[in-house]
């Protein structure tokens, strides 16, 4: 799948992207790195028939977060691992990581989870925990799914569990 003249193949959900969407804010991540990061988030929490990491904006959150809240060594490792992930996908599946199907992408990521390489392992843990944080603290999850209200709150010490 070729997409808008770029060298990287974008997955279908990214086909409607414009340059402005990807680099809407200054980032140390290149466009292709941002696309890979999005694919990683989408792999960890795919939308399925519901909502996933990308539908609640975790991709943009991750770019900003890693850019501004993590030390350069962490940023560099994230970029290096994204590259390796992509190279690995090329070798195993003859396509970019982002163009792989969900199962192929999960397979690639889970290899890092069980890796003995500390850098790979830390990358996986960081991506997973921050994707979970971005997803669980999103408005869509908190308000639409879990009915969170800032106010008024309430407290009942002993209520029946709904059957």
């Amino acid at each position: 799948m070729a997409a808008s003249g770029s060298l990287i193949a974008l997955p279908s959900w990214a086909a409607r992207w414009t340059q402005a969407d990807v680099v809407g804010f200054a980032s140390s991540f290149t466009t292709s790195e941002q696309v890979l990061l999005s694919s990683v988030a989408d792999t960890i929490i795919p939308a399925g028939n519901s909502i996933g990491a990308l539908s609640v904006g975790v991709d943009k959150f991750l770019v900003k977060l890693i850019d501004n809240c993590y030390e350069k060594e962490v940023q560099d490792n994230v970029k290096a691992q994204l590259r390796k992930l992509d190279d690995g996908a090329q070798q195993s599946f003859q396509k970019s990581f982002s163009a792989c199907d969900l199962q192929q992408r999960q397979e690639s990521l889970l290899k890092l989870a069980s890796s003995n390489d500390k850098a790979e392992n830390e990358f996986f843990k960081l991506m997973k925990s921050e994707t979970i944080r971005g997803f669980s603290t999103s408005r869509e999850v908190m308000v639409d799914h879990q009915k969170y209200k800032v106010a008024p709150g309430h407290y009942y010490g002993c209520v029946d569990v709904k059957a």
Partner: protein
Amino acid sequence: MANFNIDSTDDRTYDAIVIGSGASGGWAAKELCDKGLKTLILERGRDVKHIKDYPTASKGPWQFEYRGTVPLDARKDFQTARFVREETFHWAIKDDEQPFIQEKPFRWFRGYHVGGKSLLWARQTQRWSDFDFEGPARDGFAIDWPIRYKDLEPWYAHVEKFAGIAGNKDGLAELPDSECVPGFEMSCLEKHFKESLQKNYGDRYLIQGRCAHITDPQQIHIDQGRHKCQNQALCNRGCVYGGYFSSNASTLPWAMKTKKLTIRPFSVVHSIIYDEKKGKASGVRIVDGNTKETIDFYAKVIFVNASTINSNAILLNSTSSRFPNGFGNDSGLLGKYVAWHNYRGKANATYDGFKDKRTDGRNPSNAYIPRFRNVRKQDMNFLRGYAIGVAGGRGTFSDTSMIGDQLRDNLLNPQLGSWNIASWMQGETVPLEKNHVRLHPDLKDKYGIPQLIISCDWSENDDKMTEDYVQQSREMFEKAGFTNITAVDTKTPPGSDIHEMGGVRMGHDPKDSLLNKWNQFHHCKNVFVTDGACMTSTSCQNPTLTFMAITARAANYAVEEMKRKNL
């Protein structure tokens, strides 16, 4: 001093000056203004207006750009600061604001803005009893308190009615009842634990902790512009409803309405000015936090409410021919006998029952076991005792051990967990002379004020008491049928409790104390210290309520003494 930009001395003269705007300073200002005194509050930090200056109060987690994490760039000057989260970053204090030397590890939490730590506190408000005030005399440590419960009782009632305290009438001699609005509910697990304690011990009572939240606003709270607590449990961002007591929501706007109050933010107090001729204090010297200019303010009476350790620092730096070793310090004890609370012990457990029940929502308070050790007589191998904070509830969790569709489904559909219960120790520490603060002979901060050395450490009494808590919390949990019990001594350094007290203690005798029973300096009657620095011993109850009651009492005494022309 050269004050080229300042108006005449008259414009810098007030009836009263209050140093600090936290819980006790706010009360001093309120009482003094209510009695018609033209009062100046000197606050070293920035202004914080109720509601307007709580920028994160109504935000959901998704409204924080980094979901709570403060970017590296923004936090580079806050390496040692607390509250470095997007939700509370507005309270964080820069590293260079007030560097200090830890001769021994000490965690010093500060609230340097209008309202001070009254915006950041845990809001638990338990009264002291005579088992506490009579402690030093009975057990032979520190010195005898010059006051007893009956001296403070009407002032507890006075501040409780105004502040709004949620709790119940528990009828316990060791924890006298407060003037209360209804308390928050206990969970089924807490009730179960309460019953188990009653059955197994008889003298251990689990009650709902009394806390400074308005569950049922009375006219006096409505008059302050405050509203019912909304159970947001986002208190330390500042509460737009005024659901909990803070200076900002309560005492300061009240005092402001009298038109007698001036609050001057960015006023870093350098020292109290002593007039050798008149033999009393004439005012307070500040360094302007922005211009670094030195400015003197004058008043007939001065209240020191800068928070325990900083009040000590100011007084140590207030030297004169009469008081070469610090203000009112003929005894040489200024800065000594600093004590705090021992929060080292923590315990956790789960409970297998109540499968058909759960808790729902957020509880801004917690349950509480008043002190049961050495209450009526000394019977342990350590002095004094500890209260226990208790919180038991049933929340939800999501299994996140996988990735993919299952992870998403788990996150969208959290499961009920088991019932969990936690307890934490709140121990009294015995004031010792060696636990002290003093000024560094050379090092100064950016305002030219000497840096403080904090030298405080645990004692064998604290170790033994912690050991007892660890053992007893485990036993109490076992008897209640809890499982997966852990009970540990976390060995956290002093200061983590944020309940430091003493250094300028009250007493009968000028030889072994600094302040008299009205919180006046024995040797300079127009200066009052009514924050935690005045405390002779620490009891184990959360201390802020007692600071507020002591302050209101002393402020009203000061007004009477001024009327009698004694000040």
